[in-house]
């Protein structure tokens, strides 16, 4: 067996191979890093792609919805044209006839011919016989008028009534108009009033209709109120709204009572009370302002009346509504670029506005709070307030009683640990005495905490005594005694200094606190004074409210009535 001993081995090749391997590894690593970066890029690209894909899908859906809506709208319109096309024609004709009658340039024959033709073309539509009524009435054909009227009322009693009432007003036929108005009122349900009622009410109030209609309205309003006030629920609902209205009217400028705000723990309650008391003045001005109106609104009302008339004539009939609604929805989808959801919510909002029906008392409250929003003017606001007067007064009484009952009996104060309370700040002397006692006690307690340093003094005495005894009055003994004495003297003076400092700090705190207390008391006096003053205005407002009678609004309308004659 041969045994080979390796005495020398050349490892340089292995070494170089290893180092080249290392270099290779590094390259691989770098490569791998590059791959990672690429992967990240790829990932973000993919994300972007998926996002844009989602966008694309969404816009595609919208686009398709848009296209669909456009096609549907076209189809629906065609459908509408086929089924109710003649309605549109009747409406156009009605507008023309009304204008023609008004100017008087259309011959009786033409009128008769066209209206009768309409009658044939538009079965079931109330406006057709209504136009026949109009034309036969103009040419004094009583027989036809009555027949056409019966038919028109059969088709749609309410709309015919409103239409003829408004047309008669426009033509200045007061008696006929009055008869129609009577019928119109019979149609109204005080629990469920239409939106346009407020405009009719406004027109009657401002004197656009003849004077007799005023009495008619009053009689109806009276019986409605009788109906609605049989139970408390309707009035209570209004009272809650009025109370809320009163609560929001008061305000208090911040920093009027800065000290109470900082030092009175019950300031929040105090603030609420004074804010509510401060509402009366603003309310008094508010109500006076309603009744001190001089503007003549009758012109605007006349325009509104004509608007109702033209809406009545141009608006869609109930039969057409389902189709018209679909057309409207598709229109909105187109308008919203295919966004169905947005279109639907818009549609719901629109519907809500048109569907809104309210009971009479609620209508009055709406008109009293915000006449513009309900389509009324200040004149109707005044009317609404005067009709609502009994429960406005009741609500105001309850509102006033509530905050008067909740007023804090005392103003509580916590000033730097000193707790007290004062009813109205008139007890300043007692308060200051109490304050003084508090701080004297406080000072006494603090000084008690500074115990006299007996130990150190005793230690000093021991040192002096010991050194005198040990060194027998030698120099060392005297030095020792002096050291002992120094300790005693130092201790006592330190104690005195501490005592003095405590007294100084506490006196400073006391003086500051006293100033604050005086300030708080002064503010309390002001607060109670202001509260009493503002609270007394409740009685002034009450008088203003009590002085409101329906007489007020009729006088306004009487003035305007003379200005206007039926156009």
């Amino acid at each position: 067996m041969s045994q080979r001993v390796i005495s020398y081995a050349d490892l340089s090749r292995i070494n170089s191979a290893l180092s080249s391997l290392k270099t290779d590894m590094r390259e691989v690593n770098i490569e791998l890093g590059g791959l990672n970066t690429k992967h990240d890029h790829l990932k973000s690209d993919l994300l972007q792609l998926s996002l844009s894909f989602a966008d694309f899908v969404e816009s595609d859906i919208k686009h398709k919805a848009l296209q669909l809506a456009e096609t549907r709208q076209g189809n629906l319109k065609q459908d509408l044209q086929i089924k109710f096309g003649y309605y549109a024609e009747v409406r156009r004709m009605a507008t023309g006839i009304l204008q023609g009658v008004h100017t008087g340039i259309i011959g009786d024959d033409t009128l008769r011919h066209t209206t009768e033709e309409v009658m044939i073309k538009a079965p079931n539509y109330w406006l057709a016989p209504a136009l026949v009524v109009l034309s036969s009435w103009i040419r004094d054909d009583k027989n036809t008028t009555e027949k056409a009227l019966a038919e028109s009322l059969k088709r749609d009693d309410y709309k015919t009534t409103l239409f003829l009432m408004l047309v008669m007003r426009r033509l200045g036929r007061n008696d006929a108009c009055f008869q129609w108005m009577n019928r119109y009122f019979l149609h109204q349900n005080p629990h469920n009033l239409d939106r346009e009622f407020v405009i009719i009410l406004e027109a009657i109030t401002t004197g656009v209709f003849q004077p007799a209609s005023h009495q008619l309205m009053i009689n109806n309003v009276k019986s409605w109120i009788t109906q609605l006030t049989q139970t408390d629920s309707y009035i209570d609902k209004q009272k809650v709204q009025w109370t809320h209205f009163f609560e929001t009217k008061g305000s208090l400028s911040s920093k009027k009572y800065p000290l109470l705000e900082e030092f009175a723990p019950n300031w929040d309650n105090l603030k609420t009370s004074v804010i509510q008391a401060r509402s009366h003045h603003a309310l008094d001005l508010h109500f006076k302002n309603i009744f001190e109106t001089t503007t003549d609104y009758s012109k605007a009302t006349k325009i509104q009346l004509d608007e109702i008339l033209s809406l009545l004539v141009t608006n869609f009939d109930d039969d057409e509504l389902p189709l018209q609604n679909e057309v409207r929805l598709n229109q909105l989808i187109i308008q919203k670029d295919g966004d169905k959801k947005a279109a639907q919510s818009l549609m719901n909002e629109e519907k809500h506005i048109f569907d809104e029906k309210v009971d009479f008392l609620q209508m009055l409250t709406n008109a009293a709070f915000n006449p513009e929003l309900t389509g009324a003017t200040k004149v109707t606001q005044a009317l609404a307030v005067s009709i609502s007067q009994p429960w406005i007064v009741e609500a105001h009484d309850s509102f006033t009683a509530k905050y008067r009952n909740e007023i804090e009996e005392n103003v509580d104060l916590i000033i730097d640990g000193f707790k007290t309370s004062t009813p109205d700040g008139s007890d300043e002397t007692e308060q200051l005495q109490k304050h003084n006692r508090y701080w004297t006690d406080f000072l006494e307690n603090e000084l008690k905490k500074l115990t006299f340093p007996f130990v150190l003094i005793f230690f000093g005495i021991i040192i002096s005594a010991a050194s005198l005894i040990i060194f027998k009055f030698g120099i060392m003994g005297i030095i020792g005694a002096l050291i002992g004495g120094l300790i005693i003297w130092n201790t006592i003076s330190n104690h005195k200094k501490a005592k003095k400092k405590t007294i100084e700090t506490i006196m400073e705190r006391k003086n500051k606190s006293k100033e604050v207390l005086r300030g708080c008391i002064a503010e309390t006096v002001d607060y109670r004074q202001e509260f009493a003053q503002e609270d007394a205005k409740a009685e002034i407002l009450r008088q203003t409210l009590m002085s409101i009678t329906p007489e007020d609004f009729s006088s306004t309308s009487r003035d305007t009535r003379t200005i206007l004659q039926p156009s």
Partner: protein
Amino acid sequence: MAKIIFQNETLTGTAEVGSASTKILSDRDILRKRSEKYLNLIRTMDTELLIETRGKKDMMTKIHEEFGSAQLADLPIGILAKCYLGHPHEVHTLDLSAGQIIKHYIIGELLPEHFEKARTLAKHNAYFFVEVYKDKLILIREDGTAAKL
């Protein structure tokens, strides 16, 4: 005509129809203006009739007259008013259910059940007196008008 419509009387009239059928005292009823006779009765309560036992009976009849058709349960428990006997007297009660008809209370003295909640308002100058009910307070002004809390 227009003037009459909106006055309290009309409203009371309608409320009576409702309350007659339902037997529940409506707000219209409870808030109607109090009669001068009733107000006078309360006004003189401090000074007259109270010493004698006859006074109480007399007073109860008059009060029942004022509340008319109302059920016994709908009657106020009592009346709380400012006391004019002078300091330290603050308020006095007219207890319609208990034996002792009138009692004067001084500042800080606790009032019987239900009456305490009316104390602040009874002291207020705007109100003449307060009718205390189990579930509500009715504040009566000098002119007899009522407010509910």
